[in-house]
């Protein structure tokens, strides 16, 4: 009688290596290498998390109790990660515990008891699951529990034990739950229906695991766990049940964990019982029945999807070769579990990334609502498109029944270009086109027509780009090319590409988001993408037409490695020797390759120049000069005055703002005294000025302007932000002219040095100026110009548009750079000294800083400014930030009125 224990050991070893469907990843690959790579990836993740947690906890300034409460979020995250890994393992080992046809046929005739086979499968599953859980917790499991333990060695040991018990229980729960799902399906429906349902259940479970992992809300706080509105949600989130278990085992900090822990244990017990029962029943009842059934269900000719695809192929593709390749590709993906699983892996990664972005939309972190153009939804469609195209393209190289590909060789009665074209159409038809259709339905339903149309245009071009580039130098018929012996396809480098993709896609989506706000920007983006798509299409077409091209059926080493063929095997025949050294571009000069890009760049520049010129002309028509220009010695400055009476209020705007930004305030001040705003050199309607142009230079220019415009003193100087330095310097240079001052959230020389941009090195400023002078005339600044989303109080839309247009002029941008570094003006203001007995009001924004500590310090500094004069006083404008002239203009008007009254009283 055969030794049952020996049989168990043999079967256990075999089942263990077959636990995960690694044939998916490598037709002839090294299974052990792949298993080790998987485990290493999980361990690497654990290591990274441990590296992140340890310093954060070790260096935290929180008290121990506060730290332990703050740690709940991280604990829940680690549990969720373990659940996710165990869940993905369960998906990849789908049906591995249940009996299958191969086992039945091979082991059935042998003297092996069913209970031995079942025990071996269970043991293999438990081992593989244990290894996965251990790998993903190997570093965090040794460090994190110690960080969140109460002081004391025994507490640390208890915490370690609680951590590992929790993780094992959580992983076991999700594995048993999915096994129970499979087992119940196998018991409740016929075997044939079960086979059909099984792959869909597998995919649905896969996406469910990813969805729950990425969309779980941050509820691991006292309000989150105890809030009545969250209780229903918590009932469905296993990561929180097991958080409760961990807390209970580790010494609970809140009564809420009690019922979460019992939920965890009860659900674990239920899942385990069901899984054990249905699996055992499946083995007892189905083993013999399985042999009589085919593993693959007969194709359902009446299946709507199959008929639709066949119909569409017949209608849309006129060439038989196109129909053959499309139908073969679609049927293989639809019917091959291996290919679907690999495709689902790509889809899962894409879905995970999209969900991570969607979280901000779902939980209200995004500035825009879902029915407005927003980054998460833009990103979602881009990711869906990219991963669909790249996933199917990646799956193309996974062979199916490779020996059967002889039929493609025998029937190769067309030129290779026809096959390449057919593959291209298949990839479009199976990936890009369905995504475009689904996206169009969604975006036209939820967004306004124009941005939806523009986004669809971008999506179409990116789809074309992706398909063409992914098929460049692809010489194979999908699924009909072999691999090199021993090659494993778990491309760890994919991880690196994935990270790069994230950065590129994030940047690209933000560019698109920015472009969708103005048609001019969108036009540029569209033109660039269109050029790229056309270029990609031409490259692919050139490659396909190459007379050296052949269809590739064998995966070959790099072309640089050429067999000498000393054994006369004749292996490198004309049909199969791919020689990438025969490059379609071989013989093309560098000039010929660069020419298309140079022409494209030139066209773009010319368009930009035209755009800028037309824009300037339109601005000139739409925004005629307000005020008058006066020559101050070789250049003119613009000034606008109205009103009657003394003193004359001179309004000095902040850095980057034109004089016209005072329009509302000037209009009101002019009702009780003469008031003027003016444009500094280079700003608004004034000519460019000297370089550099700091406060002293500005003050001298102002003096010359007031003389040229015959505006006599006394002056009441009003300075906002950096304008505060200028008016103080003016007083230092021309004290007899100044009768009073109002500083409006003025910059302060003691804080300016702490803001990095104010101490910019000169060479960087020179580079900025060069950039502006080169790219400004070709329209780049005009393209970047933004109008504010909300109008400042009291200003009309036209006035806002005027201010925006003046700010974004090239000369204004250059003028701003010439006024830097701001620290230079700060030192000039410091050197200008005090204000003596001048009437002075210092307006301070009550919300200039969001940090309460910084705001307090700011008010104190501003109070110091009020002490520049013995008659100075500070007014905190509570409902305003730094932009008091826009946010609380009335406070400026009142302050000026008060100082005018004081000055007139002094004069009388």
């Amino acid at each position, binding site marked *: 009688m055969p030794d049952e224990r020996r049989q168990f050991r043999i079967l256990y070893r075999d089942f263990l290596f077959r636990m995960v469907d690694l044939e998916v990843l490598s037709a002839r690959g090294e299974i052990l290498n792949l298993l080790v790579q998987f485990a290493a990836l999980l361990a690497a993740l654990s290591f990274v998390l441990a590296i992140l947690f340890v310093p954060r906890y070790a260096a935290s300034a929180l008290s121990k109790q506060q730290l332990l409460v703050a740690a709940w979020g991280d604990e829940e995250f680690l549990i969720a990660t373990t659940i996710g890994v165990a869940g993905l393992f369960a998906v990849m080992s789908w049906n591995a515990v249940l009996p299958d046809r191969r086992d039945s046929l091979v082991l059935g005739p042998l003297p092996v008891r069913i209970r031995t086979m079942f025990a071996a499968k269970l043991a293999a599953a438990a081992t593989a699951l244990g290894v996965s859980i251990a790998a993903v917790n190997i570093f965090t499991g040794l460090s994190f529990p110690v960080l969140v333990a109460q002081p004391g060695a025994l507490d640390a040991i208890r915490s370690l034990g609680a951590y590992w018990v929790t993780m094992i229980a959580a992983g076991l729960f999700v594995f048993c739950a999915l096994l129970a799902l499979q087992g119940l399906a196998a018991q409740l429906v016929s075997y044939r229906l079960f086979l059909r349902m099984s792959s869909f259940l597998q995919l649905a479970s896969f996406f469910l695991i990813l969805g729950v992992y990425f969309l779980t809300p941050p509820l691991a706080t006292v309000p989150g766990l105890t809030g009545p509105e969250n209780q229903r949600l918590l009932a469905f989130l296993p990561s929180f049940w097991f958080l409760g278990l961990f807390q209970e085992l580790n010494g609970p900090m809140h009564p809420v964990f009690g019922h979460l822990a019992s939920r965890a244990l009860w659900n674990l017990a239920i899942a385990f019982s069901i899984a054990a029962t249905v699996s055992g029943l499946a083995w007892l009842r189905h083993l013999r029945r399985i042999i009589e059934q*085919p*593993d*693959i269900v*007969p*194709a359902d*000719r009446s299946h709507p999807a199959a008929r639709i695809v066949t119909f569409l192929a*017949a209608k849309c593709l006129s060439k*038989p*070769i196109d*129909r*053959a390749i499309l*139908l*073969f590709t679609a*049927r*293989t993906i639809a*019917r*091959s579990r291996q290919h679907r699983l690999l495709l689902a892996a790509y889809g899962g990664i894409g879905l995970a990334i999209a969900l991570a972005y969607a979280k901000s939309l779902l939980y209200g972190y995004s500035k825009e609502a879902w029915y407005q153009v927003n980054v998460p939804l833009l990103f979602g469609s881009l990711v869906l498109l990219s991963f669909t195209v790249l996933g199917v393209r990646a799956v193309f190289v996974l062979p*199916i*029944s490779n*020996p*059967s590909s*002889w*039929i*493609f*060789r*025998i*029937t*190769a*009665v*067309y*030129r290779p270009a026809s096959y390449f074209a057919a593959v291209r159409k298949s990839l479009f038809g199976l990936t890009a086109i369905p995504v475009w259709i689904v996206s169009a339905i969604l975006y036209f339903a939820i967004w306004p027509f124009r941005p939806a149309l523009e986004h669809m245009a971008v999506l179409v071009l990116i789809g074309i780009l992706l398909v063409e580039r992914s098929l460049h130098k692809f010489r194979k018929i999908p699924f009909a090319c072999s691999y090199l012996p021993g090659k494993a396809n778990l491309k760890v480098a994919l991880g690196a590409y994935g990270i790069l993709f994230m950065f590129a896609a994030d940047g690209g989506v933000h560019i698109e988001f920015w472009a969708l706000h103005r048609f001019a920007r969108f036009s540029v983006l569209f033109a660039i993408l269109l050029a790229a798509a056309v270029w990609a299409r031409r490259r692919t077409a050139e490659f396909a037409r190459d007379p050296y091209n052949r269809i590739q059926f064998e995966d070959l080493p790099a072309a640089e490695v050429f067999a000498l063929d000393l*054994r*006369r*095997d*004749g292996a490198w*025949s*004309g*049909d199969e020797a791919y020689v990438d050294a025969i490059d379609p571009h071989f013989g093309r000069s560098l000039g010929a390759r660069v020419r298309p890009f140079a022409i494209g760049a030139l066209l773009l520049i010319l368009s930009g120049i035209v755009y800028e010129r037309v824009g300037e002309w339109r601005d000139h028509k739409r925004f005629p000069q307000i005020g008058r220009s006066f020559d101050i010695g070789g250049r003119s400055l613009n000034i606008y005055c109205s009103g009657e009476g003394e003193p004359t209020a001179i309004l000095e705007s902040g850095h980057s703002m034109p004089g016209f930004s005072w329009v509302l305030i000037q209009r009101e001040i002019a009702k009780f005294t003469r008031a003027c705003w003016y444009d500094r050199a280079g700003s608004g309607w004034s000519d460019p000025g000297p370089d550099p142009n700091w406060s002293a230079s500005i003050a001298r220019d102002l003096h010359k302007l007031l003389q040229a415009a015959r505006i006599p003193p006394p002056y009441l100087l009003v300075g906002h932000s950096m304008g505060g330095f200028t008016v103080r310097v003016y007083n230092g240079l021309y004290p007899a002219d100044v009768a009073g001052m109002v500083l409006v959230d003025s910059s302060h020389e003691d804080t300016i040095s702490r803001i990095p941009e104010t101490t910019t090195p000169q060479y960087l400023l020179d580079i900025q100026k060069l950039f502006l002078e080169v790219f400004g005339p070709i329209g780049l600044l005009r393209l970047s110009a933004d109008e504010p989303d909300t109008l400042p109080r009291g200003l009309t839309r036209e006035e806002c548009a005027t201010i925006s247009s003046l700010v974004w002029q090239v000369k204004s941008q250059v003028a701003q750079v010439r006024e830097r570094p701001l620290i230079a003006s700060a030192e000039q203001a410091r050197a200008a000294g005090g204000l003596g007995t001048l009437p002075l009001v210092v307006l301070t924004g009550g919300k200039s800083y969001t940090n309460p500590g910084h705001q307090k310090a700011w008010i104190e500094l501003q109070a110091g400014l009020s002490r520049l004069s013995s008659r100075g006083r500070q007014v905190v404008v509570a409902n305003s930030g730094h932009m008091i002239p826009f946010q609380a203009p009335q406070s400026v008007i009142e302050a000026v009125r008060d100082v005018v009254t004081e000055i007139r009283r002094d004069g009388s």
Partner: protein
Amino acid sequence: MLELRGVTKFYSGIPAVEDVSFVAYPGGVTGYLGPNGSGKSTTLRMVAGLIEPSEGEILFHGEPIQRNRIAYKQRLGYVPEEPHLYPHLTGSEYLEMVGQLRGLPERQLAEKTDAFLRLLALYEDRYVPISSYSKGMRQKVLLAAALLHNPEIVLLDEPFSGLDVNSALVLRNVIRELAVRGKVVLFSSHELETVERVSSHVVILHKGRVVANDSIEQLRVLMSLPTLEEIFSRLALEQDTEAVTQQIVQLIES
């Protein structure tokens, strides 16, 4: 006319087929015989254009087949030894795909596919995946796929393998009929009786070399042996079958 001239194929420096030369004429059936491993399938694969000969050339109507592979493959029908078919496709889908790959018009293809499936008793299982087909059913699919486009050259490698008696009889008659209609038919088989009945000409391979290349009648006269089986045994058999039989029985009982 299909001609092989000095065709040789090396694998790892060892000749699988060495200096094979013969002619297969249209209107006749050429049987290609030899023990296992003698190089029959290798030769047929070279003639089908699936692998390249290390030396020698293969000509069709006097022109090397490499000169215009596309045109050659358009006229070629091939049934391989191993019935490798895509298991996830149904019989109907597979034939439809082959017909589309060969550029057959859709309507004609549909009619021909249906007709072949009916005639080969596969019509009832036409929507069943090939993975569920028996060996004989797969062989029939291969046969239909090879003949769908009315080829001029028909290469059959062990075509009777797995066929039931009825289907084998039908195939035998089909082969004869193809030859009558002027096709070049080259087929290899282990069934000497069938070869003897169907072929007008035989080529016998032994260890990669041609040891006989003549009409059956001529061989009988030359070797003074009445049947093809005896001729084959004299020229190509490698084992003392009786001695081997005894040894196997002893091994089982040991």
